């Protein structure tokens, strides 16, 4: 622990010397973002720009999604920078709370690649710095003992899980975040995309109550036969804890969350060295991987002074500069930044990008369908309802919400 603290201190010191001058004359920078090691690195990089007449503050919290809209709506906005992902940028776009970055890029440039620019309607709205995806993670030793190969489809995942279970290696071989709410809905989205589904038709009307939706639910249900029976209450944190205890042989997990498992902290012996972050799988004979791609990037608030906007832009550009890359930072995420060399922790996400997975839909009403799925799907998995009834409920709940938000009119 002490050693770690020292390293962290050394890194932050090194950071300060390298980025002492960020080219900011004056201004206030206040950053809102999610909380995990990669974002903390970015936050620290921006804070290194603080100095004479320049203040840099950060609020990195898991609650960022809940406060971003209200805190950027006020004029002047509470935060000058919001670090977002492809789902959380949508509410900011819907309410016109972030500004195009083209002028700032033209004026100040920045050491990043063109493909890091997130453009919407020809305007750069965000600069991306890392990628993320859910993919298959497996235990090399358990699969070998069961005499099976790593799977390429969900049908094979079931075969692998069955082989591991039949050998009596672990009781509940498969793990995925199926807890009621966001996680379960996200797994539905993945599987639905894998089956070639389209979420919407005729504008904002839902399109999940059909054969594709039923096939999606049935595949998910067959997977639950190999999961801990408490699966409707288990999220990423709990699944990871089960993984560390050596109770899971194969799981669907976020690259960003599976990477730290390789370090083997608080882990049963033999688990970390056999953990492989592999690749996404397909389903139902489809070619599209049953997963979605995600990016994280920064945006600049609209309701702030030009001075603060420039200061914010320069601080963030400094924070994502290729010079931040070192051995520890490289293991924190799949960076889009130049000079980043892939590590075993990033293999899964790279495989997902190469497999041509689709990004999570950046649609104004996608989050409403996501919420409706999260609330209604548990009835199917607890055996209360048929797949058709559940999907009809999902569509009804979504339509009610979409009418309230003005996406669907009578």
């Amino acid at each position: 622990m002490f050693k770690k603290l020292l390293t962290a201190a050394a890194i932050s010191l090194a950071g300060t010397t390298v980025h002492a001058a960020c080219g900011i004359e004056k201004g206030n920078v206040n950053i809102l973002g999610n909380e995990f090691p990669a974002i903390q690195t970015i936050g620290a990089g921006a804070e290194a720009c603080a100095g004479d007449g320049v203040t840099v503050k950060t609020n990195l919290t898991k609650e960022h999604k809940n406060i971003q809209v209200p805190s950027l709506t006020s004029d002047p906005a509470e935060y000058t920078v919001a670090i977002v992902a492809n789902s959380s940028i949508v509410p900011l776009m819907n309410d016109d709370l972030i500004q195009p970055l083209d002028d700032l890029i033209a004026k100040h440039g920045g050491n990043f690649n063109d493909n890091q620019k997130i453009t919407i309607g020809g305007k750069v709205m965000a600069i991306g710095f890392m990628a993320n995806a859910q993919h298959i993670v497996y235990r090399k030793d358990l699969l070998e003992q069961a005499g099976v190969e790593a799977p390429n489809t969900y049908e094979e995942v079931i075969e692998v899980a069955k082989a591991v279970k039949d050998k009596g290696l672990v009781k509940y071989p498969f793990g995925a975040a199926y807890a009621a709410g966001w996680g379960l809905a996200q797994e539905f989205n993945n599987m639905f995309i894998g089956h070639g589904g389209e979420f919407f038709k005729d504008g904002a009307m839902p399109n999940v109550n059909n054969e594709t939706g039923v096939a999606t639910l049935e595949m998910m249900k067959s997977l639950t036969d190999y999961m801990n029976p408490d699966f409707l209450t288990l999220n990423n944190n709990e699944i990871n804890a089960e993984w560390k205890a050596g109770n899971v042989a194969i799981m669907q997990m976020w690259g960003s969350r599976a990477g730290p498992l390789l370090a083997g902290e608080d882990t049963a012996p033999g688990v970390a060295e056999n953990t492989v972050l592999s690749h996404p799988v397909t389903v139902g004979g489809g070619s599209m991987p049953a997963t979605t791609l995600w990016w994280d990037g920064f945006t600049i608030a609209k309701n702030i002074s030009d001075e603060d906007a420039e200061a914010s832009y320069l601080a963030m550009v400094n924070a994502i500069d290729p010079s931040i890359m070192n051995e520890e930072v490289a293991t924190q995420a799949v960076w889009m930044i130049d000079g980043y060399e892939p590590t075993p922790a990033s293999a899964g996400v790279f495989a997902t990008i190469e497999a041509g997975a689709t990004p999570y839909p950046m649609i104004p009403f996608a989050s409403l369908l996501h919420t409706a799925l999260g609330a209604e799907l548990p009835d199917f998995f607890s055996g209360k309802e048929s797949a058709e009834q559940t999907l009809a409920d999902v569509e009804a709940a979504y339509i009610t919400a979409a009418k309230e938000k003005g996406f669907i009119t009578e």
Partner: protein
Amino acid sequence: MKHRTFFWFFLPTALAMLLFIFLPIISVVTQSLFIDHEQVFVEVENCNFFGCNTVSVVDTEATEQLRAEQPLGRFVGLGNYINRSHLAFSEVGEAWDKSDSVGGFFNNIFNLPLYRALIFTLVFTFTVTPLLIILGFCIAIGVNSLNQKIKGFVIFFSLLPMIVTPLVGSLILFWMIDSRGIIGSSLQVLFDDPDLSLKASATLTWVTLIVYGVWHAAPFAFVVFYAGLQTVPQDTLESAMIDGASRWERIRYVVIPHLAPLVTFVALIQLMDNFRVFEPIVGFNASAHATSLSSMIYSDLDGESRLLSSAATSSVLTIIGVVILLFPVLIRTWRDWDRKY
């Protein structure tokens, strides 16, 4: 107290209530009568690290104009109250027409979010409240008859469930009742059923939440009753003993009548508290099997969708629910007061 003195005495409280209770309720009621503006979409190209595709985004200029014209949104009257997320009039009517039995009708009704939340909230409120009063009373009687030396120690331990933050308490129990946790696996051995899971079945989840509710709130009833026990007239107790009353008879005919007003007080507070049950549902990740009125409001406000009008409507319905729930108790208090003065 003179009216004038009373007025000045009460004024700060009244102002605080106006500011922090009355005005927010007005704002919530107003919000519940409106919905968002129609959103105007435009199709644009979206490019990122992974490639380009066409997406639809909200045309913020056009929406801004609508917003300036009608800052509160579109007025829908009671539209939010009767939609599927709330009282669901048309869905209830349809369920009535379609179902061939009363059981089938209720099955369809409890598939609607508000009714599903309401049934759990009511079951929770009306099982937890009496149970915690009985349990709290028993603990109070037990502790009161303890030796002075260990009393303080036992009181401290009896209060622990209330001292622990609800969310933390439920999270700790969440892991203990896990099928691999200490309680979960003990139950599996006890019932000789290796697949027994408290979290997988709806019934057992409800039982768990109710047990948690009693565990968490019993100390409150205990403290109140224990304080009350210190005021039981010793003369009456002694004369009852001389008359040959047993311990049970003394409790039944002297102690319980003496504590009756406190029961009303505890019931009042706990009915309100239990009606807005929330933390254990979050702590136990139980939303698959149990939702409450408060957890409905929470999920409307949580995350990216922010259904403000829907949350406001659920809040107003919760307030109405609390009023209905407390009506009998309030009438009783009013009568008692009337009789005394």
